[in-house]
């Protein structure tokens, strides 16, 4: 009976999700008919403050927030605060980086980081290489979301929906609306998601302490008296997650989150640079919500003691299924499932875009005029969009198969992705403000950084000397890049600085795009 109620609630909301995701595509049909890649990948660069806020909050508040955050709170305690710290710091940085990338992409008609890199260094193959590398980093993320959704769905249906069916459901639903609606579909679904997430977490934040502990005072007193180890660094048996780890992880992740391909997709979807600045003010407020799963994870220490390893990721849902009626469990499950679906949608979209534009697009470039220099709208853009949609299905399928045949624990995977993606920060951000950085230097630096990350992570030496290996690798990366720039080969690039670098806040009027490029170029080098 309970299973039927919860499953029905879940099914109804999933139908609503699919409807929203599919209807989003019709939103702009009435006005301008844009069917090209820019419409699909970055929502035609037309999303306002509200949509950008829900979309970017939607992307960052993933199933990890429900499962991993509660699980880390349960197992380790304080170290979980790194999530809140890096997202806050990263969102603050986004105030500068967001508008910068937006303006650059808009001026040159670019749709993602691979595109930006290819344009900056004038090397389409470099965009291809970055696309391949980023795909490797992002695929585990899709798998992470599929796994997360599967676990949630099977738990809230009281086992009525099996893990494997839940995996497939997440994949099928997400793929369908991404292929049809692109970024705009994700933004629409994000609205439903954020409403549910805010409502359910707000409710749980009040309900759980009252239900189990006579309120917050009693809960916190018990926590301080009985579990003090959880409440300061390095946390409870966290295996080296001390202050040094927290500091280094927060720094490197906050730099990475601003160039993470999915974040950039959100940036590029914005209507204007000012939308992003306004958004950067409001977005960090969302992080306050992250304290809720952390607190609930800790509360679970008293209610369901003895969860170990991956089991602890279910800390929050053990409380929920234990204390709430089936329909409420269903609604909370929907919020958590959408927290998988929205990020998964954007991850797939980004992988599709990178391939359509920088892998297949670059390969056929030059000869047929569909390369990265071709406009993103028009027939070439439509061809790239079709490739992108195909890749979405392929990438989703691959991630689904990985989930069935090579499952792993949640957090480690995302740390590898992050530390790897961090190595693209100099190539992208330093490259956009510093003309002297050559492609050889950027590539050498990234290669050195990636090598160090892989060595440290796969040999089990991360954190290395108590410091996040990604930050050490980033330091090496920058050192190598500076050295190669200084002593390495130098080719003449005849393009003016304004064509190559990010000139922040340049708003050429419609139709002036070509001439606008050179304006204000000379003194933009900082």
């Amino acid at each position: 009976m309970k299973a039927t109620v919860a499953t029905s609630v879940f099914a109804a909301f999933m139908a609503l999700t699919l409807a929203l995701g599919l209807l989003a595509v019709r939103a702009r049909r009435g006005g301008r008919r844009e069917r090209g890649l820019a419409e699909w990948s970055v929502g035609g660069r037309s999303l306002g403050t509200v949509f950008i806020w829900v979309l970017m909050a939607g992307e960052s508040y993933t199933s990890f927030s429900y499962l991993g955050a509660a699980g880390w709170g349960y197992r380790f305690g304080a170290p979980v605060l790194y999530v809140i710290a890096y997202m806050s710091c990263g969102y603050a940085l986004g105030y500068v980086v967001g508008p910068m990338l937006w303006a650059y992409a808009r001026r040159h008609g670019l749709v993602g980081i691979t595109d930006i890199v290819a344009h900056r260094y004038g090397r389409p193959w470099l965009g291809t290489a970055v696309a391949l590398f980023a795909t490797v980093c992002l695929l585990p993320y899709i798998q992470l979301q599929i796994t997360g959704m599967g676990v949630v769905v099977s738990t809230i249906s009281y086992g009525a929906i099996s893990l494997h069916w839940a995996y497939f459901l997440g994949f099928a639903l997400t793929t369908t609306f991404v292929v049809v609606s692109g970024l705009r579909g994700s933004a629409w679904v994000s609205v439903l998601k954020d409403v549910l997430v805010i409502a359910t977490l707000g409710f749980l934040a009040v309900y759980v302490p009252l239900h189990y502990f006579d309120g917050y005072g009693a809960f916190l007193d018990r926590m301080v008296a009985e579990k003090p180890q959880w409440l300061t660094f390095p946390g409870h048996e966290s295996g080296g997650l001390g202050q040094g780890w927290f500091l280094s992880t927060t720094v490197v992740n906050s730099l990475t989150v601003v160039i993470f391909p999915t974040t950039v997709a959100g940036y590029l979807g914005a209507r204007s640079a000012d939308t992003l600045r306004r958004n950067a003010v409001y977005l960090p407020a969302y992080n306050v919500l992250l304290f809720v799963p952390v607190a609930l994870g800790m509360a679970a220490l008293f209610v369901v003691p003895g969860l170990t390893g991956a089991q602890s990721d279910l800390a929050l849902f053990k409380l929920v299924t234990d204390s709430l009626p089936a329909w409420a469990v269903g609604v909370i499950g929907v919020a958590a499932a959408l927290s998988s679906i929205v990020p998964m949608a954007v991850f797939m979209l980004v992988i599709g875009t990178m391939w359509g534009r920088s892998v297949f697009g670059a390969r056929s470039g030059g000869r047929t005029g569909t390369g990265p220099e071709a406009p993103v709208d028009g027939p070439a853009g439509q061809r790239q969009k079709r490739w992108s949609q195909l890749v979405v299905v392929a990438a989703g399928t691959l991630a689904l198969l990985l989930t069935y045949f090579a499952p792993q624990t949640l957090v480690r995977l995302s740390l590898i992705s992050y530390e790897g993606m961090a190595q693209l920060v100099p190539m992208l951000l330093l490259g956009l403000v510093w003309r002297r950085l050559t492609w050889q230097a950027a590539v050498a630096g990234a290669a050195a950084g990636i090598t160090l990350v892989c060595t440290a992570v796969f040999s089990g030496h991360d954190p290395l000397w108590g410091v996040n290996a990604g930050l050490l690798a980033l330091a090496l990366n920058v050192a190598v890049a500076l050295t190669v720039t200084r002593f390495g080969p130098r080719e003449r690039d005849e393009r003016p600085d304004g064509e190559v670098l990010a000139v922040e806040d340049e708003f050429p009027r419609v139709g002036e795009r070509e001439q606008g490029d050179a304006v204000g170029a000379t003194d933009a080098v900082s």
Partner: protein
Amino acid sequence: MRNQTPGGAPPGSRKRPALLWLLLPYVLFLAALPLVNRLTPTVFGLPFLFFWMLLATVATPGAVWLARRGDLRRGHR
């Protein structure tokens, strides 16, 4: 933001000291950590570290707002 005069000085090249506010989260979350990594005193029952982190989280939108206010005052929009 579209009313910017074409041909004027590119705003990106101006000094924007208000952007230093964006470092405030780093100061609160990271630089202060050795001082705040402690259980007591508890504030409203919250262990001190968690109270501090909550404070830093709430302060972050404020810091970005201050940076933006600085930009707006310089006509940077």
